[in-house]
């Protein structure tokens, strides 16, 4: 009886995976077509069959500490070829969703994210917080002795002065990053504990060099290109990835310009930036790429359920927010050029709510894949488990 492992099936955990989208888990007849067709799966202990089987048994610890679920890019090759319609890709998505919930702090927010009916609350939180910020704008400005006046004409900064906006967002972003970092840490520990590699295998690469390889991979999306049935997914993700990156970098640049460089500049900052300002050009292109990427991804999800599997509210929430952030951003800009005051400020406010949702729900939403996937891929790179 050497190495015999006592297995305690946990039907409750299986049911949770079923609830979170893995409803076809019991259709699996364990044939391993999925693992064989997956272009991303390593040769040793390949996924996703083992994850599907673990899900049937409800082996919670194995699944949550399994880096392989994050090596999957949900390209749908497995689901398209599954002879029993068990949608292994969707099951892996459900497990990832479960993992995100498990590692995120505070737990109650995670629960709200995963329960239908909580969407209004999730929207209400940033709306209320932003309204509160508006309420304290003038008293705070007076207290701090900062002028909220950004000059004549239609200027969104008149609604949310830069100092308020940046201060507000930055503080919540930091909270969010702390939470996601905690989640990442707990995940990393679980991975190290996981019994995926039963032998004490020494890493074949240093952590830093593995990380850099993974970053290079992100930049090129080389690994994503391995997917065969949904080539559009790589394009969509590239658009979203670079669009978001551009917007993030430009925003950071704007903050740096405003608060780091501006004091040293002789002429005051021409604000708002002109349409042809390089930063503005990058931002607009980024927004377009983001919106286009989201559009492709959404169409793919609606039109191609066979390979994509059923999309859950978890998928739609993140994708929807991203898309709407891009759209409202562009519309806000357009309305400013059109000098449509009421509509402009309204859309701007909505844009802020959405952007805020994106940031504060980062640890609980699909957005967190950025950290878990990075960690898992780095680990896999270190252990030589990547194809």
């Amino acid at each position, binding site marked *: *009886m*050497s*190495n*015999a*492992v*006592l*297995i*305690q*099936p946990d*039907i409750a955990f299986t*049911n949770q995976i*079923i609830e979170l989208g893995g*409803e076809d*888990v*019991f*259709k*699996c*007849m*364990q044939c391993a077509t999925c693992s064989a067709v997956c272009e991303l799966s390593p040769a040793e*202990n390949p996924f996703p*069959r*083992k994850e599907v*089987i*673990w899900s*049937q*048994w409800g*082996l919670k610890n194995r699944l949550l500490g399994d880096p392989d679920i994050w090596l999957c890019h949900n390209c749908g090759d497995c689901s398209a070829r599954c002879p*029993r319609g068990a949608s292994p890709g969707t099951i892996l998505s459900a497990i990832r969703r479960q993992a995100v919930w498990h590692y995120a702090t505070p737990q109650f927010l995670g629960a709200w994210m995963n329960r239908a009916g909580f969407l209004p609350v999730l929207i209400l939180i940033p709306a209320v917080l932003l309204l509160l910020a508006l309420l304290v704008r003038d008293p705070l400005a007076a207290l701090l002795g900062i002028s909220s006046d950004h000059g004549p004409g239609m200027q969104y900064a008149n609604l949310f002065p830069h100092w308020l906006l940046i201060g507000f967002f930055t503080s919540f972003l930091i909270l969010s990053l702390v939470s996601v970092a905690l989640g990442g840490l707990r995940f990393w520990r679980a991975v190290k504990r996981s019994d995926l590699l039963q032998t004490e295998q020494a890493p074949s690469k240093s952590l830093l060099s593995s990380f850099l390889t993974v970053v290079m991979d992100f930049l090129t999306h080389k690994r994503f290109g391995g997917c065969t049935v949904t080539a559009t997914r790589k394009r969509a993700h590239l658009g979203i990835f670079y669009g978001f990156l551009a917007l993030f970098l430009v925003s950071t640049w704007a903050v740096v310009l405003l608060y780091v460089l501006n004091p040293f500049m002789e002429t005051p900052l021409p604000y708002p930036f002109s349409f042809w300002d390089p930063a503005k050009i990058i931002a607009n292109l980024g927004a377009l790429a983001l919106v286009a990427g989201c559009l492709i991804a959404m169409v793919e999800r609606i039109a191609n359920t066979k390979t994509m599997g059923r999309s859950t509210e978890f998928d739609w929430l993140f994708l929807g927010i991203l898309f709407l952030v891009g759209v409202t951003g562009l519309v806000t800009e357009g309305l400013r050029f059109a000098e449509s005051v009421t509509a402009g400020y309204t859309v701007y406010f909505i844009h802020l709510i959405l952007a805020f949702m994106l940031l504060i729900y980062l640890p609980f939403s699909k957005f967190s894949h950025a950290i878990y996937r990075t960690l898992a891929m780095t680990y896999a790179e270190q252990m030589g488990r990547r194809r």
Partner: protein
Amino acid sequence: MDQKKIAVYLCEGCEIGTSLDLDALAGVCGTYACKTHPCLCRSDGVRTLEDHIRDGVNTLVLGACSPRFKSEQFNLPGCLVERVNLREQVVWTHEANDEDTQMMAEDYLRMGIARAERTALPDPFTLDVEKTILIIGGGTSGMKAALESARAGFKAILVEKEAELGGWKRRFPVQFRHSPPYGGLAATNLNGDLKSVLDHPNIEVLTSTTVASIEGQPGQFDISLRTNGTTRVSRVGAVVQATGWKPYDASRIEHLSYGKSPDIVTNIEMEDLLNKPQLVRPSDGKPIRQIAFIQCAGSRDPNHLPYCSAVCCRVSIKQAIQLREKLPDTQTMIFYKDIRTPAQYEDLYRRAQELKGILFAKGEVAGVTPREDGRLRIEVDQSMLGEKILVDVDLVVLATGMVPRVSDGEVIRRQRDAQAVIDRGEKGVKLETAKATLEELKQLDLESVLNLNYRQGPDTPTLQHGFPDSHFICFPYESRRTGIYLAGCAKAPTDFEGAISDGTAAALKAIQSVELGSQGKAVHPRWDDMSFPEFSFQRCTQCKRCTEECPFGVLNEDEKGTPKPNPARCRRCGICLGACPERVISFKNYSIDIVSSMIKAVEIPDEFDEKPRILGLICENDAYPALDTAGILRRRFSTFIRFIPVRCLGSVNTIWIADALSRGFDGVLLVGCQSGDHYQCHFIKGSEIMGIRGKNVREKLTQLALEEERVRLEELTIADYNRLPEIINAFADEIEEIGLNPFKGF
């Protein structure tokens, strides 16, 4: 038939006329009239033949195509038609207008004429048949067989050992559906089945009854039945054996610990548990949280049942679905090697998977151990979880397989013969052998089911895994006892639906055998054959070879050991004819003399011609059709060979081989069907028997200072038409290498 009046007709069609010199060929006919026709099978050709018959011709030799073709056109009532295969075996497989091809055609025509001179139209052996079918076993297939016999206008006697009809259906009130939608479950309609059987005026139901004896032959089986100590005698025409199955004894599968805990049950016991109002742990009445089914419990295991019982997967899935309804919170696991839900029953498997909670886990169950906490620990090897795993459950269900409820007549006979040796007070080696036999068979349950009064034993012989079929793919429903047909799980494991269709089929087979018997015709595979073996008992030496070698147990014997034929049991394979060293057995149209004269009809060129001659004795069932196919495909083979079709390779009497070699043939090629475990011999063991006889022949050859390689036995299947020409050519080459027969010309 009075004086034979023979005429020969040669067909010019299908390249025969352009490939052979027909005038020269007509020369071999001697005094017989020989004519040609451009196309004999055409209506004017057939009319010409009919005109001849009207003019008094009663035996026709037709040099045309293979006798396997145009059989309808050349079926000329009252006339003996001898077909000479000039098309497939001569002109389509050999060079046209060639000296050797011509010699071949001439030989075949001579052989055909020789046969026509000696053969006669059979005079059928008919019986006053009893149009009653005895059905043994009142389960699903037995009831169906009775009903179908009755509906076809026959009487049926349905015998059931238990006090009530119904069989296993009584234990399965709910079964998986046998009609769309296949994923569903349905109540077993036993009462409907019972009513239709009990209400039918042509069916006599005898419960608590066993068969005390069966003797006679199809059409006239005299049976005696025993009901609670009283015996009654009846006559029936044929028998359907639907004796069903029993579950494999689970306690013999030691590692599964059956019997060590009340919580380890078989699938049959699970059926009973499911039908109780409260489903709890049998040991202590506590609730069942986890339950495991273990598939292939003893099945597909060389130490237990080496075969798959075909239904256990579906039964376990059905029970798991019932459990989901009865105990929705109980977790069900099914440990399997392979899930086998054939055809549409895949829907049942899918349905179980869609219930989201039945865990199908692949792996080899290495053991079940009762634990002190009252639970059962299952050890699974090669699990999909990547290692050896242990799982604790509250109830284990062993999906055991089916064992046919039949006995092997040959084994019982061995036992009885051994007992008889002891009872006679024999001494020495005979006694020792008998004792050893009894010791060897001691472990077996040797109670006869049919109690046949047959010399070869009281039950049908069994084949693989103890099933009494005679090759269930080639001859479904047939046993090796003519007039006794098999239905349901006695034949092969099946579900209720399979048992029902078996019942119908076996009943129709039984009826067919009675009807054919009334016309003196053979049953499958020589259907319609009216010849039967005739014995010249004056020369019989009571050697018993025919009695022993007959695959169908046709022959009983008297006190002296003289065979007592039962022609209606006979399938006309001729194995007895091949076996008889005294050559006292013959058919009207197939005998030692007929084949010998055909052998002698071949002209053997003298040694200076360097034209060897090979005799090919070729089985009509698979090898001859394969040869025809080779002809249709225009495969070429040696012109040195002369084929004579035989009823079965087992019907080859070694005298023919001796005749051929002493006549100057240089080699003898015997081509028969595949023997062994996956045999395809239509008469079960013909080629096997020939293999044994062939050894003796080769020994004799060595004594005569002849090379034993001159006689070769080849086995093939009907699909080996590409291989057959290669076999012939390789043998011809080898014979040329060995050299000509030194007896040539003597």
